[in-house]
């Protein structure tokens, strides 16, 4: 139980990851799958950001009143990695939406079963 007291935020991100995975593999609609993928990505961002936490410290902008001591600031590295990852996730979501739009124009649906049926008909 001691792990639950200190690691409960990690377990919450695990729950969010599972919700995202359920969206990706449990839903049959492609747009719902995309939303599940976004939830999955957000869970990973939160997981990384929580890795930067040091209790009782401040943001990594150097302040003359606090000094240069590394123990007084939270870890800047996960913030940098996630800052770029968020923009990349926005761009990849744009690509996914473009693919969904072109699938919809071709088959008139985003439901997996309908798309497969119409692919069989056209071939």
């Amino acid at each position, binding site marked *: 139980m001691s792990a639950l007291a*200190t690691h409960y935020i990690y377990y919450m991100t695990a729950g969010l990851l*599972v919700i995202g995975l359920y969206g990706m593999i449990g839903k049959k609609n492609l747009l719902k799958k995309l939303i599940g993928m976004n939830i999955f990505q957000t869970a990973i961002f939160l997981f990384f950001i929580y890795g930067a936490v040091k209790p009782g410290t401040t943001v990594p*902008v150097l302040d003359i009143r606090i000094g240069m001591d590394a123990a007084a600031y939270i870890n*800047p*590295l996960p913030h*940098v990695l996630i800052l*770029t990852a968020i923009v990349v996730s926005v761009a990849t979501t744009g690509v996914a939406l473009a693919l969904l739009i072109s699938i919809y124009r071709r088959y008139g649906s985003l439901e997996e079963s309908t798309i497969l049926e119409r692919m069989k008909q056209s071939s």
Partner: protein
Amino acid sequence: MNWYTAIVLALFFGLLVYAESDLPDPSDASSPTRTHVAPRYIEQSYADTRTPNVVTSVLADYRSYDTFGETVVVLTAGLAVMLILPRKERRR
């Protein structure tokens, strides 16, 4: 939800909880996230780059090669969307 989906999700959750239980406690001062390169970034940032915001100096100086790659990925995503959905120019 199918029963095998539920099993996969439960196994995934169990695996994550098992793996995350081994991660260091955030208040542990000797964890690798606190002792690796991060202290050097914080202590050297102002002397090296005159930049008080450590996130910016790591993003654009210490790890600028990584940021360059990410920027190329963003641009490539934009170009991919242009290829997938070409805009039809309407001439009038």
